[in-house]
């Protein structure tokens, strides 16, 4: 069973979002990292880039495949997790912690209606 923290919101494409004030932190779920295994490279958006919901904005590469990441909420890229450049395995070891991908500056209340809560995501991946 994967770890699915209650405090986060989830996209069906396996990104998680943590909203704190006007900042949204984004990463990939425990389920996603387990499916990918052995993350060897993460390509992140440039800071300052403006993302709309669903924008293809990052690539996570495992030994076997390259997978695209989509912006779960809209905003401007504020900061990227520079540690992933040298230690991409953080995405495997700590998907909700040190393995976060990037932070967005959001304008006002983010639109999260399309996102799932923990129970919804668990159902989505067949672990409900």
């Amino acid at each position, binding site marked *: 069973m994967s770890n699915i923290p209650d405090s986060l919101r989830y996209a069906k494409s396996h990104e998680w979002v943590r909203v704190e004030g006007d900042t949204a932190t984004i990463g990939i779920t425990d389920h996603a990292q387990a499916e990918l295994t052995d993350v060897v*490279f993460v390509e992140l958006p440039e800071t300052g880039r403006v993302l709309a919901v669903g924008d293809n904005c990052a690539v996570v590469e495992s*030994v*076997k495949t390259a997978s695209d990441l989509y912006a779960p909420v809209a905003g401007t890229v504020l900061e990227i997790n520079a540690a992933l450049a040298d230690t991409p395995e953080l995405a495997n070891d700590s998907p909700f912690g040190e393995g976060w991908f990037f932070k967005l500056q959001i304008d006002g209340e983010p639109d999260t209606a399309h996102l799932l809560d923990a129970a919804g995501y668990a159902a989505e991946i067949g672990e409900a």
Partner: protein
Amino acid sequence: MPKRTPLYQQHLALGARCIDFGGWEMPVQYTGIVAEHQAVRTAAGVFDISHMGEIWVGGAHASGFLNQTLTNNIELLAVGESQYTLMCNEAGGVIDDLYVYRIANEAFLLMVNASRISADLHWLEYQASNHGEDRSVKVENQSEQTGAIAVQGSATPLFIGELFHGDGLISVKRPGDLVKNQVDAWNFGTGVVYVARTGYTGEEGFEIIAPNEQIVALWDAVLEIGRPHGIVPAGLGARDTLRLEMGYPLYGHELSEEVSPIEAGLGYFVKVDKGKFVGRSALMKQKDERPKKKLVAFKMRDKSPPPRQGYEVYNNLEARKDLKSIASAGLKPQDADPVIGTVTSGTQSPSLSCGIGMAQVHIDRAREGTAIDISIRGKRYPATVCKKPLHKKQ
């Protein structure tokens, strides 16, 4: 409905993640590709390769027939020996790459790629029907009834002998006595199984070919006797990273009917002096004239995403100062900076901790040490053409 090997339930019980591989539901990994890769490089791993095809060729003139159908020289094989070889069409394109085992003087076991079984059979039967002077050659597809496992890693000679009692039925006493490319047979359960000192990982190891009914017992026994030596089940993911570090080709990536063994750097396995064989004149011409493209191995120079099949190869940006003069001569940028090749396979090397791959490149860019660029999602990353194998045994 995908096909499953006799080991499907074993894979599930071991927690494998299965993928479709050419119509077969095969384990891509159990615990993780990197861990399985390292286990094979440092101790031992066992792979299910039951999806591969087994075709028997026999009859009074089987050796003569095979020598006219395959590129390597079958007369170099004594009974109990095997060789890597290729089956080509008249134009020299590769129909399949395979191992041929000489089990008896005129009985050969061909181990072929799963995806090519029907193409191979079709070609072998067509050639047999053309083999005018003699209709005695018998081609028999045993793939459905036969399974196989690959036991690979430096520790494998330490325990492989515990699998079988008694002497080999062909020439050696114990499996550990087999030398590279040698094959023998042992009784196992109610069947006869073939054990060859061959593999696709670059490590010491054995491949065991057996009737389906024996495969589960063999697999379980290998895991049991190998446990004190650190054996793990290994999936197709590790099989791919291991073979890529060695620069071994994989059909559908490095090889196809549009690529010749010469272009794939496999000229050693094409014995043009042995006499007539299918594709000989085309291959001789290529050997003489120098092909236009060549398969090379390469290593990424810096941190980069792993290269993948289909990525374009360019001249290295730094090494192309000369292109300025080409540009000033009024040529278009695509003339000054053309695509010089295509990646055929790529991955992140667990042993080297960098991106590695193979690519088909223009012959002038194929020399060892040549700086090239791999284009990954529109960005260029530098790489270096390297000698095979990319990983050298410690």
